[in-house]
């Protein structure tokens, strides 16, 4: 018997990353902009998405959404009312989405008739940060009801995101939300991050959000 050290140097998430890479390539081939929405539970991902899908449809754009949840298809039902294609991804208790789940659930969708693919991740500020879903843009949501120091408590996910959206701005005053502190904390863990403010209730900031998505699409997706 002989003992030896074998060098491996292999990424633990290589398998997921490779699936994500292929997925991204495929979606780019159709000119689809893919947006991964991450946040804690109850910070308004579904509400933001609901309004976003409706507004994009009104503009004649072609959005679609995949919605991750531990159980139930309540969110998918809510979102389907906007008239866009929506599919639920039930993770059966798993705390995050993985690239293979996205590939599986895209299934029979005609990617040529999708311009914006939204992925609503499982409400969780820890685990989803490690998993590339083949997205172009990772958007992290922070609602005014959560407190300004969330970014400091969960630096990984805020650092891994490209855009931060502060949601439920209509409640900011009632919550005595310190916007300046929240933005300072976001930028402490991700200097230079683009920060938007929205209210899915009264529509404030939605135009800027949609313009931001259109800009990303222009910059990242050449096809169509």
């Amino acid at each position, binding site marked *: *018997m*002989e*003992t*030896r*050290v*074998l*060098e*491996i*140097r*292999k*990424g*633990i*998430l*290589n*398998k*997921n*990353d*490779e699936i*994500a*890479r292929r997925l991204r390539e495929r979606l780019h081939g159709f000119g689809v902009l893919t947006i991964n929405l991450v946040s804690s539970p109850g910070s308004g991902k579904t509400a933001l998405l609901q309004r976003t899908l409706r507004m994009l449809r009104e503009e004649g754009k072609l959005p679609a959404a995949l919605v991750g949840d531990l159980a139930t298809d309540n969110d998918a039902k809510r979102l389907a009312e906007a008239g866009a294609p929506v599919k639920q991804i039930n993770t059966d208790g*798993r*705390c*995050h989405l993985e690239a293979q789940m996205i590939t599986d659930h895209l299934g029979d969708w005609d990617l040529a008739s999708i311009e914006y693919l939204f992925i609503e991740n499982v409400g969780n500020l*820890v*685990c989803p*940060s*490690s*998993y*590339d879903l083949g997205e172009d843009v990772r958007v992290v949501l922070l609602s005014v009801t959560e407190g300004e120091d969330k970014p*400091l408590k969960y*630096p*990984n*996910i805020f*650092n*891994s995101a490209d855009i931060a959206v502060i949601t439920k701005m209509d409640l900011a005053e009632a919550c005595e939300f310190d916007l300046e502190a929240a933005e300072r904390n976001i*930028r*402490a*863990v*991700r*200097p*230079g*991050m683009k920060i938007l403010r929205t209210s899915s209730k009264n529509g404030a900031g939605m135009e800027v959000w949609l313009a931001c998505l259109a800009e990303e699409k222009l910059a990242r997706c050449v096809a169509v």
Partner: protein
Amino acid sequence: MHELSIAYSVVEIATQSAKEAGATRVKEVHVRLGALSGVVRGALEFCFEVACAGTLLEGSKLVVRELPAVVYCAKCEREVTLPSVQNFCCPVCDTPSGDLRQGRELDVEAIEIDLPGDEREDASGDEHGNASVGDTQGNS
């Protein structure tokens, strides 16, 4: 908590390399965890034992090397280690920097294996080990 699925991936990667090298047992697994990897060391260590059950890794030791976040400071013109991931500012000159150079690592560095005492494994082991790394390298 996704550390259990991370632990299973570690076991899968280690098992594959160990089998290719003709190992009879894996004694140690060395992993690197970046400060921004999103994986909690204690949780991974706990899950690792569970994931090893019934595999070549049963009874093996998980050796974790934690890597701090490192950013490039444009003002100092060098890489600096961040004392905390709650503040992406150069610890020397206090300039903010998001230019991350280290901190997302989440990989299996090496394994320590037991080999049967024959002469075969030396050449083929390395070759296979390297090939498997190259074949599956992602863009993480």
